């Protein structure tokens, strides 16, 4: 494997009293696109939120670019160059589309310009003065992805970007994610939609009950399909 940009080791996390992650471990190489697969409640979203520092109590180790982040606050973690696109998309209703796009402050040089983002998502430019939450689900998802491309962050955490979207839009988002990988972004993708994940990812980690239980490389997916179906319960 190329040198790891993100190294998660024995990560544990709690929501209040409930212990959600019981020692998650995995690595992502620079420029890789890796997915976290697993059933509902396996701890995929919590893993992303723990990396981002949003979960209150966490233990273990999360190293980004060689720096330990597990005890840092989420704003300082973001400033190291990690950007987060939440499952619920998190579009702000009191901000218009362009204000939503411009909200995350640049954290590193080399982020995409507003023009580039608009050329990737032409719909957003047409609707730049609309209230953020007035957009369609697909447009909101594109806005949620678009706004983290400006900041110069090199690791993107995408939580189920295809959830609840029409197949045409899912396809479009797949193309965009592939383009982002080509541009050199490192991406950690949480997906329920395995077919979508298989189209874009280099490797898959499978989670169960708050742990990573298996790793499957893209090349081995076809021969591991039975195993995967058992994991995912499909």
């Amino acid at each position, binding site marked *: 494997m190329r040198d790891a940009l993100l190294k998660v080791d024995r990560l544990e996390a709690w929501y209040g009293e409930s212990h959600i992650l019981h020692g998650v471990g995995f690595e992502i190489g620079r420029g890789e696109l890796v997915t976290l697969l697993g059933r509902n409640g396996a701890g995929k979203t919590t893993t992303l939120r723990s990396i981002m520092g949003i979960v209150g109590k966490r233990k273990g180790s999360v190293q980004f670019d060689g720096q330990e982040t597990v005890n840092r606050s989420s*704003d300082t973690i973001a400033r190291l160059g990690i*950007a987060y696109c939440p499952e619920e998309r998190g579009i702000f209703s009191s901000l218009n589309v362009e204000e939503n796009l411009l909200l995350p402050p640049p954290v590193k040089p080399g982020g995409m310009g507003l023009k580039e983002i608009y050329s990737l998502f032409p719909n957003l430019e047409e609707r730049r003065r609309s209230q953020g939450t007035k957009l369609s689900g697909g447009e909101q998802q594109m806005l949620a992805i678009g706004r983290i491309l400006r900041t110069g962050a090199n690791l993107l955490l995408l939580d189920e970007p295809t959830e609840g979207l029409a197949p045409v839009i899912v396809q479009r988002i797949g193309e965009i994610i592939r383009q982002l990988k080509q541009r050199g972004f490192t991406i950690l993708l949480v997906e329920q939609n395995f077919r979508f994940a298989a189209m874009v990812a280099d490797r898959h980690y499978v989670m169960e009950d708050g742990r990573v239980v298996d790793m499957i490389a893209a090349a081995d997916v076809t021969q591991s399909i039975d195993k995967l179906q058992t994991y995912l319960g499909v």
Partner: protein
Amino acid sequence: MLDIFSIPLPALFGQLLLGLINGAFYAMLSLGLAVIFGMLNVINFTHGAMYMLGAFAAWLMLTNLSIPFWASLVLAPLIVGLFGIVIERLLLKRIYHLDHLYGFLLTFGLALVIEGLFQWRWGSSGAPYPAPIPGGYNLGFMFMPAYRGFVVVAALVICLATWYGIERTRLGAYLRAATENPTLVRAFGINVPRLITLTYGLGVALAALAGVLAAPIQQVSALMGSNLVLVVFAVVVIGGMGSIMGSIVTGFGLGLIEGLTKVVYPPASNTVIFVVMAIVLMVKPAGLFGQSK
């Protein structure tokens, strides 16, 4: 004789002007309350005390250091704003995760302590503050003291500048976003706790600025804010929590309604705002400009 419905015109305009001036203070104070509530989830009951502190700071600087009104207009909000920041850092930030009620009790208690200390040291009778702009204009139908005209214009400018700052600037966008979803805004790399402290400082400074403007009109006294703040809470409820333009329009509007009531039926002038509040709460519980969530 000029009159409408047997009300002499000079009396009508006199009361409307008075209403406009009161409205200017309602607007400035409810603005700060609305911003603070949106961001901190705290119903800031010290707001009246901060208004009083602004007036006192100006008065003390004038009588002890001969610092003129115009300098106080900048200095007093700065001093009181810094005091607010200390309070936020030391006390308020510890209770954000608790129910609204705790914030209410804490700020209410603080207001009592602050006002009590000033009452103990300076009494409650009040001290005069000389009008910084003497004289006035005869408008034909009424006499308009120059300073009161200035207050109305200044309040309008302050309110619109605050509105612009919140609705049209980058910092304002951070503020609006953090009001909606502080966790996510923080995960974008914005230091939300610092933003919260700053918001409280600014809201409190706005109250102090209103206090400085009020000093030459009212007596500077320890309880000048506690009388006002009840009405201001009614204004915030009527306008809708968290709506900036709503606070401004409602503030001025209710001042005018109060002024009109003084002409038409004086005994009701103290209660008319609360009657409006009751009606608005029945018809539109989120307030005139509020959005129900």
